[in-house]
């Protein structure tokens, strides 16, 4: 199994199967899947389409979009029909002379100026209403702060102080206000099934509402070109029932796990000694770097690398061996670790539940 095929991620299968966090069994090499087997239910990110909405905001947009599309299709049909009919009915037949010149009919032309005008006014009122429904004015402090970096997402929970990366948990049915800030260039926060996108602009904080009607794992993606790894800067929004969400919060608030077996203890030491601490934070240790994702509860996350690999020991080992191979041009360099070092670090990081 070569590196490239392992790197290939098939979201549905991996994430569904990766729920078994604590088991260390080897995950099989994903083949190109029979998608219909997993194309069901809210857990699947496959149908990440704007029409498969799972929130009131996305739902409002989806309904509006369908209506607008119908209007557009009607207009397209009218024009196409008129043109097609003309091409057949008024096709030149040999021997025909040129028709009598007609220079226009201003009544008709006024009609087809004024009627579209009113159609568009109607669309405009729908637009205004849709804007209010999908993006009402913020009226309170944000529940979540998202800071975008080249090329990963930082998430901070102001009420509890929890900081995590690339995976956002929210309680099902709650309407959250997300504050968006950027640490470097312009990015864009977009979860197609949950709502509109919003640019994350340095120097211009933005707000967005985030809500999910059903529990599930929703894929988000960066939607403004932000450099070399824009294509691999995704994130997950995981909506959980209240009890599960509380449990997750409690777990995240704790400092880093300290169950250290032999290999992971070695890994912990390596982590402290090598340059990892300059960029990463692990609460409860002296790793306090701010430039890279917080790793305190790394093992509790379903994916790594901003949702390009599922979080399994094999994938983590591949990542640590040479992150540049998987995600070229990111800030994490190839640390030229030996296989032993990789093994220890993997054990350590996978212990950080």
């Amino acid at each position, binding site marked *: 199994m070569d590196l490239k095929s392992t790197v290939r991620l098939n979201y549905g299968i991996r994430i569904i199967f990766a729920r078994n966090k604590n088991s260390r069994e080897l995950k099989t090499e994903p083949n190109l899947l029979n998608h219909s087997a997993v194309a069901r239910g809210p857990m699947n990110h496959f149908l990440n389409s704007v029409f498969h909405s799972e929130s009131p905001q996305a739902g409002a947009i989806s309904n*509006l979009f369908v209506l607008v599309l119908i209007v557009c299709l009607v207009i397209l049909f009218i024009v196409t029909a008129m043109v097609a009919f003309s091409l057949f009915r008024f096709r030149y037949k040999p021997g025909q002379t040129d028709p009598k010149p007609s220079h226009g009919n201003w009544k008709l032309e006024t009609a087809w100026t004024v009627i579209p*005008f009113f159609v568009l006014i109607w669309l405009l009122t729908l637009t205004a209403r849709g804007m209010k429904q999908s993006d009402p004015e913020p009226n309170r402090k944000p529940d979540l702060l998202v800071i975008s970096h080249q090329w990963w997402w930082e998430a901070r929970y102001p009420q509890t102080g929890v900081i995590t990366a690339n995976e956002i948990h929210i309680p099902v049915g709650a309407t959250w206000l997300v504050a968006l800030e950027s640490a470097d260039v*312009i990015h864009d926060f977009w979860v197609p099934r949950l709502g509109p996108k919003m640019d994350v602009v340095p120097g211009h904080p933005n707000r967005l509402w985030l809500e999910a009607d059903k529990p599930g794992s929703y894929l988000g993606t960066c939607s403004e070109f932000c450099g070399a790894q824009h294509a691999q800067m995704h994130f997950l929004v995981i909506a959980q029932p209240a009890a599960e969400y509380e449990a997750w919060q409690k777990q995240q608030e704790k400092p880093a796990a300290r169950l250290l077996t032999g290999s992971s203890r070695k890994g912990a030491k390596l982590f402290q000694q090598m340059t990892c601490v300059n960029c990463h934070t692990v609460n409860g240790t002296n790793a306090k770097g701010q430039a890279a994702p917080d790793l305190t509860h790394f093992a509790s996350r379903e994916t790594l690398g901003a949702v390009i690999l599922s979080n399994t020991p094999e994938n983590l080992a591949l990542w640590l061996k040479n992150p540049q191979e998987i995600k070229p041009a990111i800030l994490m360099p190839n640390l030229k670790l030996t296989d032993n070092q990789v093994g220890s670090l993997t054990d350590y990081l996978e212990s950080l539940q």
Partner: protein
Amino acid sequence: MNETYASPPSVEIFHAKNAGEGFFSWVATVDHKRIGILYLLTAFFFFGVGGLEALVMRLQLAKPNNHLLSPDAYDQLFTMHGTTMIFLVVMPTLIGFANYFVPLMIGAKDMAFPRLNAMSYWFFPFGGLLLHFSLLAGGAPSVGWFSYAPLSETPFASSPGVDYWILALFALGIGSISTSINLIATVLALRAPGMSIRRLPLFTWMVFVNSFLLIMALPALNAAIIMLFIDRQLDAHFFMPSHGGSAILWQHFFWTFGHPEVYIMVLPAFGIISEVIPVFSRKPIFGYEFVAGSTVAIALLSFGVWAHHMFAVGLGQPMDIFFAASSMMIAVPTGVKVFNWSATLWGGSIRLTTSMLFAVAFLLQFTLGGLSGITFAVVPVDWQVTDTYYLVAHFHYVLFGGSLFGVFAGIYYWFPKMTGRLLSESVGKVHFWMTVIGFNMAFFVQHFLGLMGMTRRVYTYPDFPGWGLLNMISTVGAFILGLSVLVLVWNIVVSLRRGVLAGDNPWNAWTLEWAASSPPAEHNFDQLPPLHGRRPLWDLAHPENPDEPGAIQEEPEGKKYNKNKVGMMCFIASEAFFFIMLLIAYIFYNFSQHPNTGSEWLDPLKTGVFTFCLLASSFTYWRAEKKLESGNYNGFLVWLAATLVLGGVFLTGQGMEYFELFQKGLRAGTNLFSASFFMVTGLHGLHVLIGLIGLLIVLAMALAGDFKNGKIEAVKTIGLYWHFVDVVWIAVFTTIYLVGVRT
């Protein structure tokens, strides 16, 4: 109205055996027809370059998680593809057609300024080379064709690719603006008697309106890229939020150019369609006035819709809704055109030549692209689909399925006029069907990809169901498109040698270019047919049923336009808008809550003295003109010299002021005040310097006795420019020194 102008002195080494032949005659040509062909050929070359870039990108995207290209290579490709197609293909092609056919359509011998025309052309390959030189200098720009800040700033884009992009765009802009000025002056001043503005062929009218659009839109781009260049080269921070700048201001400035730009790329194509459809339906365009009027409406409205590219930036709902309203409004005149073209088909006697096939496909594809554009005007929908492949599909439908299909229609329509031979209709049909199939295959599926969540500008994508298949279809379609271009090349090459001889008017068309020979003689027309309507050749062939019965000759035009004055006024309008943009930037950076240090070191009183000198120089120039008009040549020389001296004093004063500020440690990159101050005053100073050079040339010509014969055009024209420079300084001085200085 045939103009005579002195031919350039002949130089031995450029003489071919027969004048007008040989390689150098093409290099040195000032003939609008040859320049038009040069534009078309060069643009075609870049079409191949841009097309290959696209094909390589499509290869990378054919499969999920593909590793054919590195991310950086892909990013360079899509940046170059967009920049090339827009600035090096679509614009020059349309300008090439305009160059060739506008003078012919109005019965003129050439453009108003043939040498300016040639210069404008040469900026095109020069700009193209400059852009591609970046490949040798550290890599092509890789930040997208609209180069959003701060990604395009040095900390995030350290290779000089972006700098070459800026310089290339600047050079290309000079060429475009010059051509547009030339076209406006040509259409206003060189029409044959009887060719009133109301009778202009729609292609000419749309090119004419388009030229105004261009001269007003490009200054916004120039302002933006100059500011970015100052950021990158002089360490300023106009667009760096980390140092007080604004990333969003880049977007505002860029899209103030960018949106009119897309109309610049489509209006001449509308013009081509407005010629092709009537001719092959055998009836005049339905509703000439509405089509012509809607063009003006589009041009004006296009300046008021730019922020619909920024709905997801967070400008606030009031702003979004106003731009949604204006964007929807602009659909009305565009719709009017579509309906009018369709109505032209109705009741006609339609011949489906290859040109007509492309025109009909244009009609349907552009409508589809335009409708998807309306979906973007519905702001919440835009919030879902902007920056996805749905957007990529939209703009390819309007720019390729629209503009380029219009270009193809124009090629088949006008090739016989340009070369004397018809393109093969059978090969043409093959070309057409391959293009239509390839194009729709490549781009229709992209609507779905966008709706399924695929964002744009990604070098790869995960293996979601359907994504791989749709991308593969798109790639296959793109390759069919690529092959179709080869078919076109084949058609052109073969038809040049063996095509059916066309004669003057193979299509039995009605506008003036078909009265010339195929190809036209160098001076275009030996004799013009009588001009009593919009379709002179129809009137000639149907004297019993002319378009405008009762008109023996059009009433004389109210005024005669002076081409030099028109040209200079257009240039001034363009530069005025440029300075307005700069002043907006200055106000933005300096009139907010946190003033920067530096403005307290300005001395309005001292600068006021130099200001007085500059304004006085306008007075002295006016006196000089008066003296010249009244025949007092020496008086003229004296006042002219005084103008030069006063202008020089002003510049010296500005130099002294700069020196003092440098002594105090103020540099362009020090803070936002210094950056904007030096930019505005520096660029104005540059304009003064250019004016002084112009005045020097006038003085030299005057000393040589050039103006004694009453031909004082140059003096008056340069005078307009000089007065303009003074007016700009009044605005600059008021803003920076009077209102802006904090005591």
